[in-house]
């Protein structure tokens, strides 16, 4: 097989997976051209990623919820409420940030498990159960912020989560050294893992892609990591939000693709009855997925509160729908069993890019909504069409 034909079949076979990457690149290029390069500037990209952070972590959790054929509408106000609790802990109760953050995450897990209880144990449809939870969290958020109104957070360490950057060590030609090092380490780890994967496959005597394709992939992905690093290092380097977002993706990606738990989640989503007959505890999986969703909602609340440096009475409004949209743009299927964590992040970045790019271009808010709606519909249509072709 020639190199080009191999590339062609690779793209044809994986068009569903590559689709959103291609869409993202198209969107980035379009905005870059239309804004004369302003869109791709270090400062803008850094802002864009930071503004995507709190939706992106929700989208990761939401993807798994949708994979097991449920939905969680409560995450927006759960994030808002838990963010407010974090603010209260830090300001009114004087709890240290090192205790506040883990405590809020645990609260999130508890809230998620409660949804899980209603859905798995009592068999209440997730739509209704989480709608109820959404109303409750909304009320609770108003309750705790009613007297004070907006709660201003002055804790620098906490606020750094949404606004700060990793230390720079020193600047080299205006680039932040530590960020460069982090990027380099990323590339090295990536290359190493690809090589060890390939070596393992060879050990099992499996077919591996030709050396050309392998090299192309290595170069391409490394170049992308290098480029992003270079862009970010030109402004303030990696922000803590980006670091947290990356950590969430890496952990969840590993969990979903390489662990028994991940396999069980996709089995339950793909065919719950067959999963039960295969000895998988469907209830337990439902609990775990909703628990994780709750934890990520708490994380989202922390990121948002810290980004605004305050907890507001309306924090979290419509986060859930943004997260659901991001998950669908990222290729999750409501029929269950299909959808990737990496897709969710790309989906969130696509949606954030649209908002950001259109803001730069001065597109009116009315058109922004319409265009974002169109992109969501297009993503789902693409998904349905490619699936039909296969089936």
């Amino acid at each position: 097989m020639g190199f080009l034909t191999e590339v062609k079949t690779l793209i044809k076979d994986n068009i569903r997976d590559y689709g959103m990457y291609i869409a993202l690149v198209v969107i980035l290029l379009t905005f870059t051209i239309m804004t004369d390069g302003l869109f791709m500037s270090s400062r803008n990209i850094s802002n864009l990623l930071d503004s995507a952070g709190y939706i992106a972590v929700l989208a990761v959790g939401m993807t798994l919820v949708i994979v097991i054929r449920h939905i969680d509408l409560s995450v927006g106000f759960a994030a808002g409420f838990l963010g407010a609790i974090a603010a209260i802990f830090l300001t009114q109760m004087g709890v240290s940030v090192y205790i506040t953050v883990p405590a809020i995450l645990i609260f999130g897990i508890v809230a998620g498990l409660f949804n899980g209880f209603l859905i798995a144990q009592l068999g209440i449809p997730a739509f209704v159960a989480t709608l109820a939870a959404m109303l409750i969290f909304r009320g609770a958020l108003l309750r705790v912020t009613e007297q004070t109104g907006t709660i201003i957070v002055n804790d620098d360490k906490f606020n750094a989560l949404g606004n700060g950057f990793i230390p720079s060590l020193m600047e080299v030609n205006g680039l932040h050294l530590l960020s460069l090092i982090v990027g380099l380490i990323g590339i090295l780890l990536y290359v190493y893992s690809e090589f060890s994967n390939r070596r393992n496959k060879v050990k099992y005597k499996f077919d591996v892609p030709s050396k050309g394709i392998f090299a192309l992939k290595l170069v391409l992905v490394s170049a992308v990591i290098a480029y992003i690093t270079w862009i970010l290092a030109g402004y303030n380097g990696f922000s803590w939000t980006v670091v947290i977002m990356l950590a969430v993706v890496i952990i969840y990606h590993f969990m979903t693709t390489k662990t028994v738990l991940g396999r069980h989640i996709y089995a339950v989503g793909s065919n719950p009855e067959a999963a039960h007959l295969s000895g998988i505890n469907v209830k337990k999986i439902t609990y775990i997925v909703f628990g994780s969703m709750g934890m990520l909602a708490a994380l989202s609340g922390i990121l948002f509160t810290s980004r605004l440096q305050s907890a507001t009475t309306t924090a979290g409004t419509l986060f859930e729908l943004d997260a659901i949209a991001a998950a669908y743009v990222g290729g999750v299927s409501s029929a269950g069993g299909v959808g990737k964590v990496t897709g969710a992040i790309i989906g969130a970045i696509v949606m954030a890019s649209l908002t950001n790019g259109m803001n730069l271009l001065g597109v009116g808010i009315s058109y922004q909504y319409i265009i974002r709606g169109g992109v969501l519909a297009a993503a789902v249509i693409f998904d349905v069409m490619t699936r039909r072709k296969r089936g």
Partner: protein
Amino acid sequence: MSEYILEMKGISKEFTGVKALSDVNFKVKKGEIHCLIGENGAGKSTLMKVLSGVYPHGTYDGDIIYEGEVQKFSNISDSVKAGISIIHQELALFPDLTVYENIFAGNEVKRGAFVDWNQTVVEAQKMLKKVNLKVNPETLVKDLSVGRQQLVEIAKALSKEVKLLILDEPTAALNEDDSENLLELLKGLKQEGITCIMISHKLKEVISIADKATVLRDGQTICTLDAADGPISESIIIQNMVGREIKDIYPKRPNKKIGEKILELKNWSAYDVELVREVVKDVDFHIKKGEIVGIAGLMGAGRTELALSIFGNPKSYKVQGDLLLNGNKRKFTHTRDAIKAGIAYVTEDRKGNGLFLLQDIKSNVSAANLKGISSNGILNGNEEIKVATEYKKSINIKASSVEQNVGNLSGGNQQKVSLGKWLFVGPKLLILDEPTRGIDVGAKFEIYTIMNQMINEGLSIIMISSELGEVLGMSDRVYVMGEGRIKGEMAIEEASQEKIMELATH
């Protein structure tokens, strides 16, 4: 116009490689009750689906001549317009609507653009009178017994001015009284000139009610018996139903070694909370090491329910009685427990609750035993490919690679994937539910061969099957089930198709 209201001539229907009907001829005279008989899978339901337009014109070969004209139904509503109504085994009523709403659902009594509910109730009462059902038309259908619901279905058909009424096993879920009632009603309808085709497994009913009976076997018309030529007897029907000779498609198992009892059930009953009835009643059952035990019976006899009640009870039946595994009393509360104890269950509905159709072969093979390809919860993807590839070779799954999606495989290969999945668990007792349903002959033979291999490796197999040939060809011992009970048990030497049918239909 001829005396026949319906003539089906040379009907053939194929499902991707499997011939369901081949050159079937079926004639029904006006105003008669004509029974359609045959084993499961003989093609009865398919034939009726062709007639009622479920399979539209063009997807089958042959002609349907109804009321003297060749009909080309392209969907069900075409056949309904022509006066053909079919009442399926699973009733198609809306449980949360009232009786009168159900009778006129899809056929509303209108005045102008609006539904005239008062007139609907009046009309509904007329229909209820016709079927002899004394209920308030405002009752919700879910509050009626199954027998009465059946009558509502018939009333619904009558409201559409039905000329040809098709009933698919109308008495399967009814008790004696309700059945009696229904048969009387059919006789009454006959007086009014309504023609009736009834699919039934209960031969006594057939004998008591049929003017004619047509027997189908393996998708072919075998014979039509006419009550006018002398009474139809059960033995003639059974002979015609099973008549095929058992061909040599069942591989021999030379050195049988049958050991100790591995599983035993005593006074085993299971109550289905949702259906509100006992699905397994007082079953005494055992299987020994190295044995293939066949469980024969008709659909709805409680065989699958029995299997599920053993296999960790996933449907949460209320189970009573004792289950002894290797002589020890055991109780499984989840399928996981049963799997751990060495029991595996290959479902009859591989697409519905057996396989993960969107996933590839390797993930399906490993799904019930991820421990086997992981350590500390971390999967070893390469090990998984290796294991799946080994099964692909050893049980001959025809696919380009183990990364192919299971949804795109043929029925036979899907079944092999199911088998592979459960063999990878390393079971001691394998329960196969209809292991060869919808599979071509070649693949059947392969599956039988795999079964024999498994037995040689010391497994025991419970084989639930509606195919008598398979039961007789493969089993060492046969149980016959009916209405949730064990109706009989016999060693293979004593078993015959006629004996089994006899037990199953009583």
